[in-house]
């Protein structure tokens, strides 16, 4: 196990394995999102309360889930980078930041579009919406830091620390609807309780979440491969690629 992980952490091995993984992941993502979309827009019934407007859940919840999942992934990478000095962790962190920022944007914009007809407002400064907005600014902060510092080691270190400190926001987003009075409702799917959603609506939702997750892996791997090539441009294995 350790030997396998160690091998994977070598840039050359990572570059090759990522290249092999991408086509498989693409097929899987198309299947999952395809079934998810069919369920979301055609097969699943309308909601008893919200009618067809609730169908936005199938993109809003996966986006919001991914916006937090990617951040946790980056926090894990930051830890690996700062404590164990694993270079590949910085590559994955760099590759993930902009995808996470886009998912945060999607979670906010789809939530806003959903909120207008159901709640009666595009936006409210409640704890859930505000903490998710802060997550967006954390992503932008990481991206800005990456582009502002020229020295790569300093840049990686500074952004890893920012990511780690900012990870305190993740439990705040998750528990905001329980800690404070909010307009946003509680969690529909949680690990510990039976989902508060009918099975015919649940399966497409789970499929969409899984599909978005695989999508993130694909785009992250493409970006990480680009980043690895750039960082290792002077090494022999990269030069051998073009022989």
């Amino acid at each position: 196990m350790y030997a396998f992980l160690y091998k994977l952490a070598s840039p050359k091995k990572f570059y090759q394995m990522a290249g092999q993984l991408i086509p498989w992941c693409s097929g899987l993502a198309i299947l999952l999102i395809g079934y998810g979309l069919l369920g979301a827009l055609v097969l699943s019934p309308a909601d008893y309360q919200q009618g067809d407007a609730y169908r936005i859940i199938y993109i809003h919840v996966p986006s919001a889930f991914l916006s937090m999942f990617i951040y946790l992934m980056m926090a894990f990478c930051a830890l690996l980078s700062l404590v164990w000095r694993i270079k590949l962790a910085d590559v994955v962190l760099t590759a993930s930041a902009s995808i996470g920022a886009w998912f945060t944007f999607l979670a906010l914009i789809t939530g806003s579009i959903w909120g207008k007809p159901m709640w009666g407002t595009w936006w409210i400064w409640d704890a859930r919406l505000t903490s998710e907005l802060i997550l967006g600014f954390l992503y932008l902060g990481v991206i800005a830091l990456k582009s502002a510092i020229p020295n790569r080691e300093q840049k990686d270190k500074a952004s890893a620390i920012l990511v780690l400190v900012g990870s305190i926001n993740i439990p705040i987003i998750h528990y905001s609807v329980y800690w404070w009075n909010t307009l946003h409702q509680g969690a529909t799917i949680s690990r510990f309780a039976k989902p508060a959603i009918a099975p015919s609506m649940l399966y497409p939702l789970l499929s969409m979440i899984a599909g978005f997750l695989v999508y993130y892996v694909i785009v992250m791997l493409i970006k990480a491969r680009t980043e690895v090539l750039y960082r290792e441009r002077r090494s022999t294995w990269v030069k051998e690629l073009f022989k």
Partner: protein
Amino acid sequence: MKILHNFLTMGGYAAYVWPAYAVTLLILMGNTIGALRNNRKILKKLKQQLLVEKRQ
């Protein structure tokens, strides 16, 4: 026919549901295309660089 009608009108919420899906699709596609384009760019750049080095 009824299914198609319901699909298009979204029970009166088409003006909200469809833009939400459209913006999601746009951003996911844009991200993928952008990532692929950057990847191709760096491959090309490294190739050229290597050719220059060989000539020297």
